[in-house]
């Protein structure tokens, strides 16, 4: 399938960069033109990723629409793109959230517009490339391409301590990714190829001890990105300082890159090590769930609260992946999407207030529901989605993870369930303190409700939250086969013994 004569995966990967080049040639003084171009590009990009659905065969767990070209002959690296259900959903999430982030930046970003949109579009190409690349070296290239624009988004348009947060983000993730690079090199030396499909087809030819080391190397790369406890400390800083659009993309997409890495590479390529370290991973995930939730309870800054809630929610995703049952893993993938939707929306929600009041401290607010009824409704829906109220998206994902975990260990399930309770606690308490009560602070008297543009940014996310909550079947159908395929490789025992 081609768009404008270009194979579709290449098109969706590089279309944002093409838009970036257009913006580069626009004069920096034409702010409005730059904004319009950026919005059109990300909008069209979202449309283009939707086209993927037409040709996508949900009945297959294999890679589809594969594009393969020789790249570096000397080392056998290829330009190899492909999509399965997992990548498809994440690509759709990426293009949607980038579109929304671009739209939400219309007012929020006022200075250095040209650079801003250049970096945003470059970032989009990097993220989509990460989810589509099936050659490990190509994957690494895209993985690193993501770092640089994000560094600048935080560092230029961020808050007070942006310089510190930006370099912390960059250093942490670079340390992780160079470790991952060494892991990739070892994998290559074992398989003599970078081709993910060939590696999977070859099965586990790597000795178990070596698998353990490579798993550790990958772990550093992916766990920092997720972030898993105890590598999460960059996240609150980066989130708090990043501009709203940066936070949306950071929470919505970048964190998923880590979880995706575990699912796509660590698990099927290093199955013995994944089995062996699964309990340890689960423990780290459980610590993150509870610890993230407890720290969230204590936060005074709304953005920081949501940042720590991400640590907790991503803990759920990691739990779902590493209990190694198909049910939990599917829940985990769905939860990646859910987290992107609800946390992305929550960062936008905080951004709306920040644009109006230039503060994010919870104590500055209170009683907003009387002044901003539409806003209050949107906030409520997303709070419920984040908590996991039945009928909304968060419920389905968390429920599937718990259901998949229970047969393996009731204790793990119980600890994880505590996280849900705490989650309801910090989110509802946040909502109560910000929205209910009397208006104490006079600055809040004249707050304007959502504009049409702002509401438009929320609308697709609200639709998705209800859609996944009420009728998740199409989403689950897409990820069913590929997830099962991976779990079959990692944990064949699960499919043999009926429990």
């Amino acid at each position, binding site marked *: 399938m081609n768009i404008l004569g270009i194979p579709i995966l290449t098109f969706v990967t590089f279309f944002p960069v093409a838009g970036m080049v257009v913006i580069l040639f626009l004069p920096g003084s034409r702010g409005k033109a730059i904004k319009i171009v950026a919005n059109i590009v990300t909008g069209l990009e979202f449309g283009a990723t939707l086209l993927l659905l037409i040709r996508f065969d949900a009945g297959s767990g294999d890679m589809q629409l594969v594009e393969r070209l020789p790249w570096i002959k000397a080392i056998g690296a290829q330009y190899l793109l492909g999509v399965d259900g997992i990548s498809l959903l994440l690509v759709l999430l990426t293009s949607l959230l980038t579109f929304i982030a671009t739209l939400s930046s219309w007012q929020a970003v006022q200075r250095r517009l040209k650079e801003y949109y250049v970096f945003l579009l470059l970032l989009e190409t990097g993220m989509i490339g990460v989810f589509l690349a099936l050659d490990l070296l190509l994957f690494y290239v895209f993985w690193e391409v993501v770092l*640089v624009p994000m560094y600048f988004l935080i560092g*230029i348009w961020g808050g007070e301590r942006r310089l510190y947060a930006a370099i912390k983000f960059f250093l942490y993730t670079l340390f992780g990714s160079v470790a991952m690079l060494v892991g990739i090199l070892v994998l290559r030396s074992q398989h003599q190829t970078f081709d993910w499909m060939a590696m999977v087809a070859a099965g586990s030819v790597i000795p178990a001890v070596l698998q353990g080391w490579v798993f550790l190397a990958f772990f550093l790369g992916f766990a920092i990105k997720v972030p898993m406890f105890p590598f999460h400390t960059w996240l609150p800083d980066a989130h708090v300082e990043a501009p709203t659009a940066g936070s949306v993309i950071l929470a919505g997409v970048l964190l998923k890159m880590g979880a995706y890495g575990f699912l796509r590479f660590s698990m099927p390529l290093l199955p013995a090590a994944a089995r062996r370290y699964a309990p340890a991973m689960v423990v780290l995930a459980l610590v993150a769930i509870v610890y993230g939730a407890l720290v969230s309870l204590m936060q005074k800054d709304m953005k920081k609260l949501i940042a720590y809630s991400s640590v907790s929610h991503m803990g759920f995703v990691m739990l779902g992946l590493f209990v190694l049952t198909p049910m939990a893993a599917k829940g985990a993938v769905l939860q990646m999407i859910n987290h992107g939707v609800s946390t992305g929306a929550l960062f936008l929600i905080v951004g709306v207030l920040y644009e109006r009041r230039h503060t994010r401290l919870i104590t500055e607010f209170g009683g907003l529901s009387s002044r901003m009824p539409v806003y209050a409704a949107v906030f409520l829906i997303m709070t419920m989605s984040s908590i996991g109220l039945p009928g909304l998206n968060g419920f389905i994902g968390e429920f599937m993870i718990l259901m998949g975990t229970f047969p393996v260990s009731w204790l793990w399930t119980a600890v994880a369930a505590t996280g849900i309770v705490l989650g309801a606690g910090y989110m509802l308490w946040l909502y109560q303190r910000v929205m209910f009560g009397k208006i104490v602070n006079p600055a809040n008297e004249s707050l304007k409700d959502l504009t049409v543009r702002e509401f438009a940014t929320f609308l697709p996310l609200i639709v998705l939250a209800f859609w996944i909550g009420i009728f998740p079947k199409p989403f689950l159908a897409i990820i069913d086969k590929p997830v099962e395929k991976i779990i079959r490789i990692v944990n064949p025992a699960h499919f043999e013994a009926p429990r």
Partner: protein
Amino acid sequence: MMSTAGSDLGHLVPEMVLLAAAVASMFVHLFVKKRGRRGAGYVALAGIAAAGLALVLTPPSTDALFGGHLAVDSFALFFKAAVLAAGALAIVLAFRFFDVEKSEPGEVYYLMLLSIVGMTAAVSATDMVTTYVTFELFAIPSYVLAGIFKKERRSAEAGIKYFFLGTLSSAVMLLGMALVFGLTGSTGYAEAGPALAGANGLAALVAMSLFFVGLFFKAAFVPFHMWAPDVYEGAPTPLVIFLSTAPKAAAIAVLVRAMTVVFGGYAMEWGTLLQAVALATMFWGNLAALTQKSLKRMLAYSSIAQAGYLAIGLAVWGEPARMAVLFYVVVYVVMNAAAFGLILLVDREGRFDESVDSLRGLVRRAPIAAASILVVLLALVGIPPTAGFMGKYFLFTAAVEKGMVLLAVAGALNSAISLFYYFRIGRAMFLEELAPPPEGGRRPAENVSGTVTAVLAVCAALLLFLGLLPSLLASRAAAALLGL
């Protein structure tokens, strides 16, 4: 196959062109009254261009030329091209430097050409004596170049330091050569090699170590790097561009040739030695760079650290590692020249500020230059899609394939450490705003050079291009090794 000396000369047309240009440049400098100094520079640049053209037209030859003293094989041609590129970059940037400094020692140009002749000959040398002579030919002008501003203390000190330590290391290298001759009865690489393999092991190891010292010195490997920060900081910037790139490329070329042909029987021993050197060089260079305040000194340590990555390739050896070394040498020349070149980008009231502050808020004033510098920085750190990443990738992967995972891990770790200081520059350019003018004063008049911007942009484009399509250079590097 031996050939007559007359026909052998045909292989050395690039060197002859360079020599002729050096002489012509000298005469222009001495006798042309008006703008003779810049004229000397133009002649030198034209000479390099002509030599480059001659180089392209010179076919690689597998013959032993001049009685086995020189070889113009594809390996030599590869490095000659790298050295010429370094020289050309340095001269172009020297124009800018001397314009701002308002004093132009014209002898710089022909001294540089003479030094380049020495290097292009050294990478061809296949005999100890020739190696030594060509080494001195490229070293002696470079001592003078480092101290060219003799009235300026820093520059004079740099020249003296470089001279003393350089001659000392040359003497040590000569001693090593003498031992090789004593052990084998031959100074020719081709004869000495097999003889040495059967010689007394310990004596051969001593000879080899002494021989390597001279080369390690020129390549600024730790612990023979002590001169480098002082010389690079003190010498005029365009000459630092030259001194930090071309001699290193030449020294690596001689090392690779000697390791292949002469000391091939002792690969195990120097493998261990170079592992230690690689680790020490990377860590020392990067950690020391972290603590520097002066931009120029930081870049000096960065160039030491970069040589450490090259040492990984030498330690690992084997076909992929040697290819990686050749690849990275070229990338290093481009990256490092551009890195020191960025000091020359901005001048304030006719002065170059050797601190990161001069680059603050650069992206607002000179977006193309800032973007180019960003690409160079990414390449230096080793972040894709730049050639710097590909080079490091080739080096690390060679290490992993040979089971030396530790070297690869150390290299990767160092690349992450280096981010911290390289991105001080990135931060200044993109994240920080131009400092406000001093109280009651006005902002000093600032000038961003178009020439330097163009050079940086070309380097950045090259680094990106080779990062996306590394095969173009990798295949040439692999072909060059076949000639060895």
